[in-house]
């Protein structure tokens, strides 16, 4: 991982210009900001070097395409068609002719260039406010050529942050369960990919059933459930080394694992004699603590970002509902009171909201509520969907959806979808196979 993150960020010259364009992300994407992404310019010798190493004809254009696609996917930006661009990209990067960009209705402009320097990829880019005719940001950084896709994601993160005032979520990965085969005998493998679906990689072979992988928010470790030797247990996996180990020594099924926000503990359910309670295990000293003690099913625990509280679901009232408690298990309080069943509470990285799955009158919903249960908002309704996971900036949720089969039991599929916190911008997340149980990583370049 260290090598993968080998990447320098150098601030070149940031204008502390105020009151330039801003994108309001608290409303829907009704008015995405028109933005021109001028292809990163590249000199001939750099072009040849990169073509040799990366087998890409023009790495400058390729990186710009990533930026463009990211911006479009966010739903907040409308990248303009390059055919309409009047100014050459190398000149635009030095001094944009704002009238030209204004003419095609661009409000913001991204320019830049790529060089091959000392076997590394050096990129610099600028963000311009077209209407004000001002530079908003300028950055340069150097990395290994193989990181070229990440360069596109990092540029997007910086632009997003400058224009919305909130951190981006593009230089991230999603771990999920890849699915194949008939519904009655599904083959499941752990898989990981970049947030945009690129660089998909399978992490297990599919010999045993695997479920619910979740990222450690502070590193590239993953915890998940595996049926290795038909013993369903929570495991830890180091994505870089492939090392795996079982978590704790429980005489029965452990499941529903997640990391604490500091990455030092795993919280999970342990089922014994028909009763599931919530436990934590400290990964350093291996001390196990029992957090809930109730004859009902207590599962799907998730910490608040400050680590002081835990949300979970329990059927202690008779049906599945969402509860919160202090992290030591005291002060248990039910927070979901709407009609229907509530499950899979996940605390937003911003701390203010809990995302959940709701089942009501035969339909499944992904929704959010405040941490006291007020302000419930349902974002999407479907035949079956569950397991929301937050983008690291808390603006987007990724979840999975399963289709209804026909009378003969045919036509089953499971796919990943994403939706904005606003309820807008619902999108299919492309995966090479069927997919479920997504978990979003933190920003890699932090």
């Amino acid at each position, binding site marked *: 991982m260290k090598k993968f993150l080998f990447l320098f960020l150098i601030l070149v010259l940031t204008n502390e210009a105020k009151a330039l364009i801003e994108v309001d992300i608290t409303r829907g994407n009704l008015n995405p900001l028109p933005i021109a992404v001028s292809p990163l310019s590249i000199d001939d010798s750099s072009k040849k070097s990169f073509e040799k190493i990366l087998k890409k004809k023009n790495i400058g254009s390729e990186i710009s395409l990533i930026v463009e696609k990211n911006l479009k996917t966010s739903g907040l930006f409308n990248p303009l068609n390059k055919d309409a661009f009047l100014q050459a990209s190398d000149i635009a990067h030095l001094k944009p002719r704002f009238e030209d960009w204004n003419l095609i209705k661009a409000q913001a402009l991204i320019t830049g260039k790529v060089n091959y320097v000392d076997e590394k990829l050096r990129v610099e880019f600028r963000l311009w406010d077209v209407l004000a005719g001002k530079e908003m940001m300028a950055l340069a950084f150097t990395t290994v050529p193989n990181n070229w896709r990440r360069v596109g994601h990092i540029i997007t993160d910086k632009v997003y942050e400058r224009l919305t005032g909130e951190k981006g979520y593009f230089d991230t990965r999603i771990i999920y369960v890849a699915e194949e085969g*008939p519904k009655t005998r599904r083959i499941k493998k752990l898989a990981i990919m970049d947030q945009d679906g690129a660089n998909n990689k399978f992490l297990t072979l599919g010999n045993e059933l695997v479920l619910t992988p979740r990222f450690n928010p502070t590193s590239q470790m993953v915890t998940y459930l595996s049926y290795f030797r038909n013993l369903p247990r929570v495991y830890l996996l180091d994505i870089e080394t492939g090392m795996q180990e079982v978590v704790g020594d429980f005489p029965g*099924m452990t499941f529903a694992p997640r990391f604490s926000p500091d990455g030092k503990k795993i919280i999970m359910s342990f089922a014994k004699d028909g009763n599931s309670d919530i436990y934590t295990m400290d990964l350093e000293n291996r001390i196990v603590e029992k957090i809930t003690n109730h004859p009902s099913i207590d599962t799907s625990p998730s910490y608040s970002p400050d680590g002081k509280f835990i949300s979970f*679901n329990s*059927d202690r009232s008779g049906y599945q509902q969402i509860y919160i408690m202090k992290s030591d298990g005291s002060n248990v309080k039910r927070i979901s009171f709407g009609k229907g069943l509530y499950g899979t509470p996940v605390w937003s990285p911003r701390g203010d909201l809990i995302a959940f799955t709701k089942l009501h009158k035969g339909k499944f919903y992904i929704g959010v509520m405040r941490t006291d249960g007020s302000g419930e908002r349902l974002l999407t309704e479907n035949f079956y969907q569950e397991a929301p996971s937050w983008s690291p900036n808390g603006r987007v949720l990724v979840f999975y959806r399963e289709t209804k089969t026909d009378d003969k039991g045919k036509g089953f599929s499971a796919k990943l979808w994403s939706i904005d916190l606003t309820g807008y911008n619902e999108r299919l997340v492309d995966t090479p196979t069927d997919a479920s149980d997504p978990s979003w990583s933190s920003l890699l370049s932090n």
Partner: protein
Amino acid sequence: MKLNKILRNGFLIIVTCLALSACATSKKSTGQMQGDVYTGTDTVEYLASGVPDRVFFATNESVLTTASRETLRKQAAWLRKNSDITIVLEGHADERGTREYNLALGERRANAAKDYLMTYGISSDRISVLSYGKERPVDSGSNPLAWSKNRRSVTVKAN
């Protein structure tokens, strides 16, 4: 709700009923469910002659029905006769619940069966429990009958 409609639009419904001759029986068209508990034998296998291998549950429930208890008593009798046999109770849920809750529910269902077998003299040493949640349906349909077949605890020989 159906009843309400019949009262309100009685004539219309009766006419429709005449047109669709199967109307009167459509509610119990399969005859394979009581409430929402599966009572059929489509998916059932036998551990020995007359000893069904599985019991079925109502939605979100782990309570054993009268029929389930009868099945388990047969299993207990068979296990007493074959004292070298050990078993795994595999608990399952239908697809209409969240994955993690269903894992817990499957475990609860299998344990309901285990407890009952134990009261009929089967030692807990001979029984292990494995929950699959909603991961291994027997019927891939997305309808109430398919779901009722999938809400089950299956007794599997382990040796």
